[in-house]
């Protein structure tokens, strides 16, 4: 540890001497790590002192060897988004730069010093808050997943895509920090008996959704930070609504206005693509919750197992209605199920990493996972989901995902 503390001042030292010190530090670190290997270590070729510390680089980038990337696109340039590369995800948090995104009218660039939030309607004292005002309130931080209601919509009728990024990449998980909506509303004083809140974004579409008032009294908050820094523009900088466990679209980005009312607005988004058509011509509206779901992220579609032997099955589980209680994994096409490890932390309305040690015998098989949350809800199969929603019901697809493993180790997306 001594070496690390001396590093702080090393950039002030003459370059030649700096290189010598760094080389010395590197070799002593190697010795400390394992003195028995010292002799072997000296045989590793071409080990230089490393890159100099460039004071102009103030925001660290990834190693050039790490290539994980969102799949990003848009038919018209303004409505579209990006899918998170879940296949290489570790732990439960999604790096902010890889967090999925869905936009309906582009990504606005907002100067936080110009941004304001109006809260009005059924309140005693309608107010306008600047970002400075909002930052002065007591803050809260929570880890929550966000999932687009359309995550896996293309998979509804048949397995169409190859990788878990394509089938499930519209879910991500972050630590969000901001101000409790309940606190802000108590600041204004609620008038009468409001039931709904209109949340409006400051994107081109001024996207609006009706949020139940009870959610504001429960756990909704206005986030200005994500994973320890201010929000990324595509995540709603400088301010977004977080309604934990509710479909992504309701977590209004670039939020500019909240209006309290006794009735919902039945806005465009809540009655068209974010409502669920049923086989009997009924349309289910106000289906806010993202229900219990899980998926094996590794090994998964598009990967190839390198022959029989040990593999760790790893995946993510989450529930918009509560906490993941149990994840079961089947490695024999759903005939038998084993309880997976929940790696923790296991938090409500949050991605939960599960793992299961597995030795592949080299035979063709299909693997899958099934989650249960603390309300007792068990993740359904596609057959069960078809009964609930008709052929055009593509939203809120939380069915069990199967990955087929061929004898040569090739993994593909299948339905069984």
């Amino acid at each position, binding site marked *: 540890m001594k070496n690390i503390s001396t590093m702080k001042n090393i950039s002030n030292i003459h370059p030649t001497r700096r290189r010598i010190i760094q080389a010395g530090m590197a070799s002593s670190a190697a010795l400390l790590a394992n003195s028995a290997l010292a002799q072997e270590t000296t045989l590793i070729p071409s080990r230089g002192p490393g890159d100099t510390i460039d004071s102009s680089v103030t925001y660290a980038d990834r190693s050039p060897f790490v290539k994980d990337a969102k799949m990003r696109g848009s038919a018209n340039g303004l409505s579209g988004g990006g899918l998170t590369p879940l296949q290489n995800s570790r732990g439960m948090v999604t790096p902010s730069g890889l967090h999925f995104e869905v936009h309906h009218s582009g990504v606005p660039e907002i100067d936080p010093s110009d941004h304001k939030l109006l809260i009005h309607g059924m309140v005693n004292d309608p107010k306008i808050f600047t970002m400075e005002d909002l930052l002065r309130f007591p803050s809260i931080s929570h880890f929550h997943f966000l999932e687009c209601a359309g995550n896996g919509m293309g998979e509804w009728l048949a397995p169409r895509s190859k990788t878990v990024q394509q089938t499930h990449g519209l879910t991500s998980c972050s630590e969000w920090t901001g101000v409790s909506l309940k606190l802000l509303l108590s600041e204004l004083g609620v008038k009468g008996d409001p039931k709904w809140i209109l949340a409006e974004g400051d994107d081109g579409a001024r996207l609006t959704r009706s949020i139940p008032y009870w959610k504001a009294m429960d756990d909704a908050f206005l986030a200005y930070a994500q994973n320890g820094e201010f929000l990324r523009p595509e995540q709603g900088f400088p301010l977004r609504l977080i309604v934990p466990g509710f479909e992504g679209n309701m977590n209004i980005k670039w939020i500019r206005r909240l209006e309290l009312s006794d009735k919902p607005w039945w806005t465009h988004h809540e009655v068209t*693509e974010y409502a669920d058509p049923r086989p009997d011509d009924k349309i289910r509206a106000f289906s806010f919750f993202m229900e219990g779901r899980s998926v094996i992220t590794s090994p998964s579609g598009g990967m190839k197992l390198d022959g029989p032997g040990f593999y760790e099955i790893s995946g993510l589980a989450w529930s918009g209605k509560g906490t993941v209680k149990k994840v079961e994994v089947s490695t024999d096409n759903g005939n038998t199920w084993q309880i997976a490890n929940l790696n923790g932390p296991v938090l409500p309305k949050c991605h939960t990493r599960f793992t299961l040690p597995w030795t592949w015998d080299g035979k063709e098989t299909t693997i899958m996972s099934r989650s249960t949350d603390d309300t007792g809800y068990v993740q359904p199969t596609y057959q069960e989901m078809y009964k609930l929603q008709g052929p055009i019901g593509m939203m809120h697809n939380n069915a069990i995902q199967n990955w087929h493993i061929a004898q040569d180790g090739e993994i593909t997306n299948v339905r069984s």
Partner: protein
Amino acid sequence: MSVHNRKKIIALSAVAIGLSFGTLYASAQEKYGFGHHATADEIARYETDIHIDGKGLPKGSGNVALGKEVFDVQCAICHGENLEGMREMGTQSMHEGRRDIAKLPHSTALFDFIRRAMPLTDPGTLSNDEVYGLVAYLLNETGVIKNPDLTLDAKSLAAIKMPNRKNFIIDPASKFTAEDLKEE
């Protein structure tokens, strides 16, 4: 310190002050006081939404003919000349499926959405007359109100009962029932 604790402490000190001086001053001190009061003028500048009872609908009017004129110039390039949708532009048919105009539960949201979000590359530039005209054109074109002379304004638009409203069911998990959301 949690908000709850903070309030508790404020309340306790208020009680203490009250006991000492015989007066309670708790309520004023419970607020942080950040932000400024929004005047009616300020709210009017922000507020652009239309409620289902028509509250918020602006002055003006437009008919099917005006709507068609605007549609052909501003909308057809992405939505197709006959509202059929253009996959390459990311739009869907307005005659069937999820964007079927006839399936909408209220006409107010149609007005609201066109006014706030369209045209995609230049939202907020249509006049109120043009938006009324577009709603009239779309309702006539999709057969919801078969009347090529249809003219809409705030009053007539708010009075429209969309036939598919009855097919909307409410997810019970929302904690609302059909009764809760009944419209007069």
